[in-house]
């Protein structure tokens, strides 16, 4: 089936809000090329479980597409029309399985050497879309905080190497009550600018006391869910005919309830956490990977105003089969390796934050937990310099967001 043949009743399996939305734009969707549309439907089908920022972005994108003239529609999508697809893809149930379709499309593009053409088309579309519908500016300047090195007694190699050119390195930070001061700092922002899913705390180790105004997810708190997921995966792998692609399809079809992720009434957050574990690579076994990926996904989807990320120690590397079997309730931890992971993860957090609107006013702080080293980036702070000022984390935070 091709997009021009779309009918409203074909979306009967969509959740209610998604169905309503897609039917209201049916005439627009019918004009889109098959190489493009399922990627859009992949987002729309989850509309009911998306964060407000994502919903607004989908609304705005569809409205923008609906406002295009025939000439503009042709101009925008000509590169996508030139992508050659197989009859197998055309016959696929892409309306109800857009995620699986996009995986097959991906394989098709690679194997037919059309990936570069698609990538070019996608980049051009992204440019046009951003130009037509500029992203919303944040109501206050964004703030990112990364706390790294939990449990590390000493570390001699230089930290924050990727970030130093962008900010000021502080070497005499007073570490006392640092985690608490920083959590209180973002709680105050949540209090003064209460935006749904606007202020986040992502924890890789033991969760700290925090304000209920923060959206919180934790690697440790998800331990039962991770265990259930890994049990399911182990069982699936043993089934005849199972391979990596089949496993991915299985994971894509899991519901939050199927891994015990339905204890909280927050369906949106449950859905988000499930995707962290089913779509992320390594998020099920390494806390540092979980935290970095969760921060990336939160930034891309929820577009938070405040994000505090605290990396915890991950388990030491073991054979993948052992890690996946999850049969060691007290695994040995790799503290130094986790610090190195987190140092890079903090850099990625900053990059991902800078991809959001208002980046010119955004601030970022990374601190080596329990130690005197930190690095701060912000409009008011010098770049590529070091400061010998003595300050606690609360004071440092006030300088960062000044």
């Amino acid at each position, binding site marked *: 089936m091709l997009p021009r043949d779309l009918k409203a009743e074909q979306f009967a399996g969509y959740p209610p809000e998604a169905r309503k939305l897609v039917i209201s734009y049916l005439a627009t969707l019918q004009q889109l090329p098959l190489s493009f549309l399922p*990627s*859009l439907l*992949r*987002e729309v089908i989850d509309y009911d479980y998306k964060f407000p920022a994502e919903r607004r*972005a989908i609304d705005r994108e569809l409205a923008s597409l609906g406002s295009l003239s025939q000439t503009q529609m042709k101009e925008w999508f000509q590169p996508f029309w030139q992508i050659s697809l197989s009859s197998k893809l055309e016959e696929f149930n892409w309306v109800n399985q857009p*995620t699986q379709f*996009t*995986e097959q*499309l*991906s*394989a098709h*593009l*690679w*194997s*037919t*050497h059309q*990936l*570069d053409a698609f*990538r*070019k088309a*996608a*980049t*051009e579309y*992204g440019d046009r*879309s*951003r130009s037509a519908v500029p*992203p919303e500016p944040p109501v206050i300047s964004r703030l990112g905080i990364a706390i790294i090195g939990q449990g590390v007694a000493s570390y001699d190699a230089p930290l924050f*190497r990727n970030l130093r050119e962008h900010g000021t390195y502080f070497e005499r930070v007073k570490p006392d009550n640092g985690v608490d001061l920083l959590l209180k700092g973002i709680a105050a922002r949540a209090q003064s600018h209460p935006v749904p899913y606007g202020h986040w705390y992502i924890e890789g180790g033991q969760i700290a006391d925090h304000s209920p105004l923060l959206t919180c997810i934790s690697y440790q708190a998800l331990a039962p869910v991770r265990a259930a997921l890994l049990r399911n995966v182990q069982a699936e792998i043993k089934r005849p005919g199972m*391979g*990596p*692609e089949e496993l*991915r399809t299985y*994971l894509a079809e899991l519901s939050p309830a199927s891994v015990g992720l339905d204890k909280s009434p927050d369906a949106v957050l449950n859905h988000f956490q499930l995707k962290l574990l089913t779509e992320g*690579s*390594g998020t*099920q*076994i*390494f806390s*540092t*990977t979980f935290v*970095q*990926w969760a921060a*990336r996904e939160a930034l*891309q989807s929820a577009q938070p105003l405040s994000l505090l990320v605290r990396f915890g120690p991950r388990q030491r*590397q*073991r*054979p*993948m*089969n*052992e890690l*996946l079997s999850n049969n060691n309730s007290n695994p040995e931890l*790799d503290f130094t*390796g986790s610090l*190195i*992971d987190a140092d*890079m*993860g903090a850099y*990625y957090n900053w*990059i991902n934050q800078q*991809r959001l609107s208002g980046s010119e006013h955004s601030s970022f702080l990374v601190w080596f937990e329990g130690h005197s080293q930190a690095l701060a980036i912000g409009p008011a702070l010098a770049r590529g310099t070091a400061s010998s000022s003595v300050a606690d984390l609360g004071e440092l935070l006030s300088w960062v967001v000044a």
Partner: protein
Amino acid sequence: MIFNRDTRALKSELAIGEALHPGYGSLRESARQLSCSRRDFLRAAAGVALGGTLMSASPFVRGALAAKRRKIIVVTFGGGARDQETFASDGQENIPHMLQELAPQSSFFTQVVNHGILGHYVATASLATGVYETINNFAAIPPEHPTVFEYFRKSLKRPPSDTWVVAPSNGFNHIGESDARSYGQGWGAQVILPKHLLAAAMSGSGTDYGHLLRDNYETPLYAPQLVGSEFQLEQLESILKLSAEDFRTHAKTLSSPDELSLYVVRQLMRQQAPSLLWVTMHDIDIAHAGAYSLYIEGIRRTDRLCAELWKLIQSEPEYSGNTTLFILPDFGRDSDMDAGGNGFQHHRTGDPASRTTWMMALGTGVREGVVYDRPMQSTDLVPTLGAMMGFSPTLAQGRPVEELL
């Protein structure tokens, strides 16, 4: 920005991403810049010269007699290492051996572009056939086009013992011989999977060896159990001349699967002395699990193992003075700046950083301490090996690297 997510979401194992700062038209320019950074760094750190003007008067020894004794060893990395962790200034600490010992003795090609599918098995198959293969990266199936091993054996009438592949894991057991029936059957290389050898030698006693049985997959959640068989035990005893007990004892002294591979390579060189030996390393690919420190450890270990292999070549009478060693990653990894990827973790975006890598050639017939900037393709390797060894890879798409002939 929805399409940011859409393109990113086309991931499966091989996803599509959107550049943060578009400028797609500058892909070629980006690749060139990557190569320039490698060149400049090598010139500064290793004191190598710029090639280009040194095209003529190759020192390569020609002649039928020399060709008969010539040996070639190819080392590929399944799991590319990016510039910032290797040849850029911050990365130099991770590759002291390649930088200080190997690069000054090598012809270094700064811009090897892989235009094919960026999955490790299919990319290694493409390297071995000289054609961008389109086989399923995760299926245990042979390449569709004749491999370098088949060209080598059939053209030069070499016995099966004269070419071997040492590879890391399951899918690679078919890398030795293609499915190209029209070319003829039975001309392939024999393949050794060291982890399977060890699994067979362990025969149920799983203690103390787990660290050598790590399988780093592009989909880490899918890690099937390794199984050894009687066939592997026979390989141990008849090919490598090792008892299961000897193998187990030595394996206990090693720290990673790639170290185990190098041990098998050493035995192969001593017992079989193949003329064409292909080794695929894989430790670096732990990057897919997202732990940066483990990725760095993998790079450092691979760097050390490459130097050890080079020393081994110098010390083995069958190889010393008549061997050319090629070292190249199968491709790179995603840039930090491509929103479609997640930096070092994967190679899904198809961006210049993931497509562009390097190649080092050293030993017999290779000019020492020279850097070549011009772009070459991954598929050029097989025609180059053919030109060096005296066979014609008729179905390969690449072209011989003239600087090595």
